[in-house]
């Protein structure tokens, strides 16, 4: 138990910052117009300031009450995020099969239940699934492999 409710301080504070940013960005970058003829900036600006107010209303009372701070599960978080980014980076440059294998291996590292052989098997099975479902079944324009000489 902590002396302050950091959970809501962080949550409310982030919304406050985000709201202020959106509100100020919209009022400075886009024309606001009048209430009768709203410009592109009016609605987002109003929402931004409303969000900032709500964020403050969440964060302020939390300063004066005890609370708990949850711990993020770092390993699953990093592994999942990394696996998606690697897929995004390789699908165009290396092709579907390498992208799926990279994704599976990285994602599987988020948990310690699988050994290397199991991970290799799983990534092989998922690559076959991916090819059968998306290329053979749904006929999507994806390339299986892109060989390095194509990059040059």
């Amino acid at each position, binding site marked *: 138990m902590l002396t302050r409710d950091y959970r809501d301080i962080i949550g409310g504070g982030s919304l406050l910052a985000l709201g202020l940013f959106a509100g100020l960005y919209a009022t400075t970058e886009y024309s606001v117009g009048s209430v*009768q003829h709203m410009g592109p900036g009016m609605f987002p600006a109003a929402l931004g300031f409303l969000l900032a107010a709500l964020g403050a209303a*969440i964060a302020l009372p939390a300063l004066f009450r005890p609370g708990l701070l949850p711990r993020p599960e770092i390993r699953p978080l990093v592994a999942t995020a990394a696996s998606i980014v690697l897929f995004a980076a390789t699908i165009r440059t290396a092709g579907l099969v390498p992208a799926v294998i990279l994704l599976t291996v990285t*994602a599987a590292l988020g948990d310690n*239940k*699988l050994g290397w052989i199991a991970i290799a098997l799983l990534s092989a099975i998922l690559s076959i699934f991916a090819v059968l479902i998306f290329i053979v079944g749904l006929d999507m324009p994806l390339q299986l492999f892109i060989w390095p000489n194509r990059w040059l």
Partner: protein
Amino acid sequence: MFTQFYDNLSIGLATAFSVSNLFYCFIGVFLGTLVGVLPGVGALAAISLLLPVTFHLDATSAIVMLAGVFYGASYGGSTASILLNLPGTPSAAVACLDGYPMSRQGRAGVALLMTTVASFIGGSIGIVIMMLFSPLIVEYALKFGPAEYFAMMVLGLIAASTISSGSALKGIAMVVFGILLGTAGSDLETGVARFAFNIPELYDGVSLVVVAMGLFGVSEVIASIRTIRRGEVDRKSITFRSMIPTRDDVQRSWKPILRGTGLGSFFGALPGTGGVIASFMAYAIEKKLSKDPSRFGQGAIEGVTAPEAANNAADQTAFIPTLTLGIPGNVVMALMLGALTIHGIVPGPQLMPKHPDIFWGLIMSFWIGNVLLVILNLPLIGLWIRLLVIPYHLMYPAILMFVCIGVYSVNNAPFDVFMVMVFGVLGYAMRLLQFNPAPLLLGFVLGPLMEENLRRTLLISRGDFMIFLERPISATVIAITVGLLIWAAVGSYYARPLKAVAAKAP
């Protein structure tokens, strides 16, 4: 009027019985049962995952399939509750209370059969109610102007964010965040690309597929990897013979099923409530009405059947406001609405007169889907039980693969895949900080419509906000919204000591 009703029915039947729609209806309820049975994968994640596939289908098939996932998950959700005490879906949580004790007494077969029967009855009555009431609502709603629309959307969003779970203030903040996110991309009137930060990929804003998959698919995976547990099921104990209910079971159940259906139909159609609340209320009411309330929690059959009937009826009537008014009462309905919009169809009162094939075809597909579900859930129960024991560490890489390929395939854009990661991490942070992502998505879907209607209203009224109070329908809706806000504020004030106690507990 009857001839028109008959015409509608025949249009609907012809659409629903076309080969492709039958096929997608089957795929929908099959996948729905699958994700309903598997804890850790919800209907929301499944529908988000399927959104990219619907780009390749025609609008009717798309919506028939997505709807099938939604009500199919409710059927399947109770299976894991009964057998493992792990609810597959939130609305099946109540089924744990008496369903799991029943399976420990060796009566799992009876519980599974009776929930399927209760689901079928609840669902069927819900469909009939939808068929009768929707045309009446549409007739009325065709008179709505932009002011009424804006007011109704505000009511829907406030109801959805305050009634459900958690802090009302946080819910409303999430709605506002969602609407703000929805404003990103090119402005309807001037074409200015808002919040694009000179990134060409953001000129059209963020797509629904990306937001939904990130918030519900990826963040669910991150949160489940370390936490999900799997149980063991004695597969051989569930035979056809074990499913036959006693005369006592049937006698105890039929009235609770009807009462549950009534509750579910009512709450399903209201914004912000729906299956979860209806099923908990149905359970509470049966316990109160029972001559021997001590049986509840010990394997009382009516504690399983009434809530199941309620949540399946609610699933069907939830389509009423979405399809007749274009105002989704919950986040799954917001995804349905998004799927229709992707196909260029604007849900609202115009949907029924303009696209009778979609409207009535969807309703008729509900019948087909419910019959298919009975077949899927009873004779094929063994298959689902086998799936229940698939370990999550083999499943989540596959889920991530479907997310990535699905998102990539929409625009062939690696940037979209990257954005899914951003929203996945955001969704996980929101879970940790106890913000509910559902109101965010609702706001995101309704945001552009709200802005459009607000601008139109104020153009008509020459900038005078009093127009919302001068028009009787919008004034009534605004009054209800204000009432809800006051109720939520008072409620949170009184609930505070309770929440402090609850926070100490774990």
